[in-house]
């Protein structure tokens, strides 16, 4: 449904002098377009008739010109499309193939429309249509020339004028075009009644669409109540008659696992801080409520406080009752008794380590004592 705006037509003609010379139709064409320019474009319907009845031949050239331009467009598209393979290409190509199926149908109808617009006789229409299709679907310059002499001439014209045309892209071509909407039925001012009728009509169309969908098919407005179902009062199956003993699951690990899985089915992200705390408690990431200082107190549950405080008892059987070592060890005991971070057993081990240490250093200590007379040897008797 494309028709060239007259001014643009002239512009195109200047671009393509060769075409018209070759075909030898420039005169008749320009005269027809001239007449239109006089009354400022073909706006009124009166103007349409002369245009439609205008000599067949110039119209043919217009079609051919369009052919050629469309052909060159295809060629440039192809060039840009020739690209390196990219990820997802295969998928995209598949989609495109689908799209093209639909597109080719559109192309067919479009070509038919153009043909019916341009040609008057049936054979002309057919020919134009086939030419258009050959150009469009044959992808560019390789399109086979049509059999008629006129078509050959147009092909020659196309090849002659090809060089200046290269730059003429689709957008430039279309910019000057107007969309011909003449065939539209004349919209009349709507009356209120018509509006109502139309909306009613569109409503019913809506509901039609509903019924096409299988899911909606079952939807019924204001469904009558089908009667209640007596769920538990019917005739029982009669398989289990005598009372049976309750028996547990024979697989302990399995039942434990399935219980855990079941609880996960009802688990959802915590909705407030308390639920977050519940979750953390269950995951063992925080201490448990109620607050209890003896929580998880496993190592020393049975250890009396006295074992932490009174550490002298560990000295009795090895430490001299007085002297520097005794003094040192007492200080160690005081320090340990105030340390809450180690267990009673660790404290005891600590002290016993000193015992072993002094045992190994006995000789050195004895030497020292001898050199220092003030200290009696007696103290290191242990």
């Amino acid at each position, binding site marked *: 449904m494309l028709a060239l705006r007259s001014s643009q037509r002239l512009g195109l003609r200047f671009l393509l002098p060769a075409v018209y010379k070759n075909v030898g139709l420039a005169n008749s064409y320009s005269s027809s377009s001239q007449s239109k320019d006089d009354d400022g474009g073909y706006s009124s319907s009166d103007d349409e008739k002369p245009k439609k009845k205008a000599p067949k031949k110039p119209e043919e050239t217009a079609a051919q010109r369009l052919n050629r331009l469309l052909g060159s467009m295809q060629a440039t598209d192809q060039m840009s499309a020739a690209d390196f393979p990219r990820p997802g290409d295969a998928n995209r190509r598949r989609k495109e193939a689908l799209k093209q199926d639909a597109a080719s149908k559109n192309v067919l109808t479009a070509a038919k429309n153009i043909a019916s617009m341009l040609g008057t006789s049936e054979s002309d229409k057919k020919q134009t249509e086939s030419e258009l299709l050959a150009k469009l679907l044959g992808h560019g310059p390789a399109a086979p020339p049509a059999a008629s002499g006129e078509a050959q001439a147009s092909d020659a014209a196309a090849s002659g004028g090809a060089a200046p045309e290269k730059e003429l892209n689709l957008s430039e071509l279309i910019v000057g075009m107007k969309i011909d*909407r003449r065939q539209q039925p004349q919209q009349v001012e709507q009356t209120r009644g018509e509006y109502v009728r139309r909306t009613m009509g569109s409503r019913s169309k809506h509901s039609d669409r509903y019924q096409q969908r299988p899911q909606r098919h079952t939807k019924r407005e204001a469904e009558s109540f089908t009667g209640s179902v007596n769920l538990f009062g*019917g005739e029982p199956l009669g398989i289990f008659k005598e009372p049976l003993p309750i028996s547990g699951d024979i697989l302990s690990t399995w039942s434990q696992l399935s219980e855990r899985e079941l609880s996960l089915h009802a688990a959802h992200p915590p909705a407030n801080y*308390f639920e977050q705390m519940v979750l953390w408690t269950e995951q063992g*990431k925080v201490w448990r409520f109620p607050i209890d200082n003896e929580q998880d107190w496993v190592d020393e549950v049975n250890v009396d406080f006295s074992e932490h405080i009174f550490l002298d008892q560990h000295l009795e059987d090895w430490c001299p009752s007085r002297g520097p070592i005794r003094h040192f060890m007492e200080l160690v005991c005081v320090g340990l008794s105030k340390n809450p971070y180690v267990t009673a057993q660790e404290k005891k081990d600590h002290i016993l380590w000193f015992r072993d240490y002094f045992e190994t250093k006995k000789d050195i200590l004895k030497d020292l004592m001898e050199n220092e007379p003030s200290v009696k040897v007696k103290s290191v008797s242990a």
Partner: protein
Amino acid sequence: MYLSRQLRLLPKASIGRSITTSSTHYTTTTGAAVAPAGEHIEIPNRIERSPTDILKALASTVGRDHTAPHYKYHDDPFLIPMSNMAKRTYAMSKEAGRKAAKWIKEEHRELFLHQEAQPAIEKFAPSMVYTEESEVDESSLGQLIELGELKDAVLVYNLLEQKGMAVSPELKQSLLELVCFHNNQDPLPEEYIEERWFLQNNQRRERHGKTWKDGDLAEKLYAEIEPKTPQTYAALIRGMAKYLQCERAYALLQEAGEKQIQLDTNTFNSIIQIISFLKDNAEQRWQLCTELLQQMSQQKLRPNLGTLNAILQCISTFGNFKLARSSALKVLPEFKQLGVSPSLGTYYYLLIIFCRERGPVSHVIVDILNEIAGREFTVEHPKDTYFFATAMDVCRNHLNDKALAKKVNELLHTGNNYDLVGDSFKESIYYRNYLALLCQTESIEDFMLTYDLLVPNIYIPEPGIMEEVLRTIEINAAVEHVPRIWSDMVVFDHTHRESLLLYVLRIMVDNRPNAETPSQSQLPEQCAKVALDMYNKIEESVRRIKKVSFTGQMLGDILTLLVRGDNYEKASEVFSHIDKNQHRIPGTPAESALQEYVEASIKEKSPSQALAALQYAVDNNMESSVIAKRIHDGFTLNEAHLAKLKSLVGESFLEK
């Protein structure tokens, strides 16, 4: 000291006061001790509380705030998710952070050896790693099975085998159960709660085919255990049934029957569940089902909830509608006699048995709701979480009944029933059906109340539901809601849907607001803003992947709205866009749009704009005489304009 004395004095003082007011002769000093004779103070027994009881009690005091996003999202306006996609992305990225932290904890275990907490929190210590060289014994295997650590348990078991250490039959049995339960595949760790919540969204396919690993560890373990105990059989049968190795599971059950091995109820349940894979038509299935029940009855096995739901699951696969109904109604009383109380999963199966797309309409949901209204449920069966989504689906698509939907919604919000809504996928199905049903059946005001409550923090409508909402608005001519809905659409990223855009425009154009009523006096302006916003959005969208292109209709509507909103400047900008890009824009604006634009041009006294509109109308073969006449009457045109007018429509019209 002072404080404690005060505290000690406090009760006495209050007692004294109460006594003086009642004007009795009790003295204040002995008030606490003296009690009427015969009154017996009963000290209640201590109630043992679990560590989470107090937290749960506190949590129950916090309701859902409809105006705030879910707790899991960061409380920052910039980080509040506003589309379903964003909700998922944000939640999952938070979880991804947790995963990253966990990875670092495992990868750099040497940094986490210190124990700050006293008592230590074992969860924070790096977990034990078992390798080929680890020193292992039976007890560590037992521990791992207890924890459900499948991979490590299998590793340790293999190590023990290699070292020739004996594994006790009990431990082997436990391991067999563990391996059968998980099909020797590590399950999703429990703590990834968000991942599980969103899992169904992308994993729509249910398990349909067999996933059981034939000849894998489970069967090896099974072969090793001699003599075969009932437990051995039961574990393998259940594993095979769970992962749909149906034929072999059934064969094994028959084998056990021949060898007089006493199995248990849950094992029978697992076979009843897969009857639909064993037999082809309804009659055969039902026959096998009753046979299995007979066997159970002979072996003195007491059926449980699992049996009931398994039978109903089997019945729900019957193509024969009448047989399905009648057998379901036989099964239910049978189990009532046995004292098995149904769970929500049972009702879910009833719904799918009774309310089928192609079957007759059934109001069974009414009876179900009468049965369970106001009750609180806990999860007892894996299918319990399917109930609410299915019930709402039945309310909308099967019965289209608003009152029932409200009842279902009430049940969902009873007690902790919301826990059983399932996951994000089922939740959104539930709300999709709920909103769609309400917008078809409720008045627009009532509907908008619900809409405000649910959107956007609980549920974000999909474009399809948005269209339903718009349809409701159109039917009710409630154009005052359009600005609100439009802002929601922008936020939810629905603006690249051409059908929705056209719908919004159509509603605003067709329902011209009445400027006299005070509630609508702002509307033309607001509509113009919406239109302008839409215009800008579409222009921006050129740069995006999801491109929306203008159509003549759309631009005409935008033009109309801008004119009505007294935004002439923008309107003429839009018109020049239409005029310049005629070859790009499919379709033309409505004639009424052009007429309104010309009217506005007359008001603004800009004849050249009006003439441009006329030129456009003429070029596109639209009805131009009305416009031309308006221009001629409305303006006092100068020579140039008059000449243009003449050249466009011809002399003839002036003579009229």
